């Protein structure tokens, strides 16, 4: 009788250990999938890389790309940003309306507004007269950039990076080039 009882207790204990083992293994799997299931949001990096690529293609060693200008020294309206800068906007998502947006605004600093203290005006971000603009991709993403970022509910919006640099044309006219890069790709970067 006593032996039978002992066997029963051992059975219960082994079932208990088995249950604990399943719980621990399940938890470890859950922890790993929780951590590795959350994607890294690399859209900011991607946007910066895109800006580097575009700035490198629009200007080389501080001089604007000659293809930006037509023969009469005015900006070339037919400049194809995507082609000239070797950009590929296609993604693996089918029926995608466009995951990328790129815009480059050119401000001529030599033809700035007159009557304003030049130095103060130069330091203002709005300095210069906008003379040309190039854009490529899904224009709707630009509106996302205007909405404040950081809050949880805004994580699903596009990531935008805005940078500017200076460059000269062949006649040594100084231009401020403002590049805006916006990337949606929320499916791959945000959960």
């Amino acid at each position, binding site marked *: 009788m006593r032996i039978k009882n002992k066997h029963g207790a051992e059975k219960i204990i082994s079932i208990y250990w088995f249950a604990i083992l399943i719980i621990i293994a399940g938890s470890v799997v859950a922890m790993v999938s929780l951590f590795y299931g959350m994607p890294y*949001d690399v859209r900011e*990096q991607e946007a910066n890389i895109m800006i580097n690529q575009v700035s490198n293609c629009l200007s080389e060693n*501080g001089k604007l790309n000659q293809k930006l200008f037509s023969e009469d020294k005015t900006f070339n309206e037919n400049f194809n940003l995507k082609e000239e800068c070797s950009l590929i906007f296609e993604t693996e998502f089918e029926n995608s309306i466009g995951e990328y947006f790129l815009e480059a605004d050119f401000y001529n600093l030599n033809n700035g507004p007159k009557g304003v203290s030049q130095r103060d005006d130069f330091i203002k971000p709005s300095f210069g007269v906008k003379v040309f603009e190039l854009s490529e991709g899904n224009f709707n993403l630009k509106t996302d950039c205007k909405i404040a970022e950081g809050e949880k509910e805004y994580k699903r919006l596009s990531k935008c990076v805005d*940078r500017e640099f200076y460059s000269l044309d062949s006649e040594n006219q*100084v231009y401020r080039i403002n590049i805006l890069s916006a990337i949606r790709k929320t499916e791959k970067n945000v959960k």
Partner: protein
Amino acid sequence: MLNKRGQTSEAMTWVVATLIIIVLLGISLYAASLLSKLKIIDYGVEERTQDIVMEESLFSYFSVQDSAVKDKIFGTLEKMNNEEKFYADFNSKFQQIKFNLEEK
């Protein structure tokens, strides 16, 4: 009677041990979910040796002949540096490009 008490205390030990295991696993799961939210790569945190956008501006700064325009560009670049808009060290890059151009 004594045997029954012994059995009860043994069962209690197992119950408490199980609870401790479950609580520890719960804490670990919560920590894993918190850590997963910290998977953010900040582009600006790591200082780089290169910032193509900044370098373009520096090259154009050294190419400008007009000293007034030159001063203005430098003022803006310095302001951008103070606002930490560059990803590489502005001063060392400035010196490096200046040195390289003078060498030429």
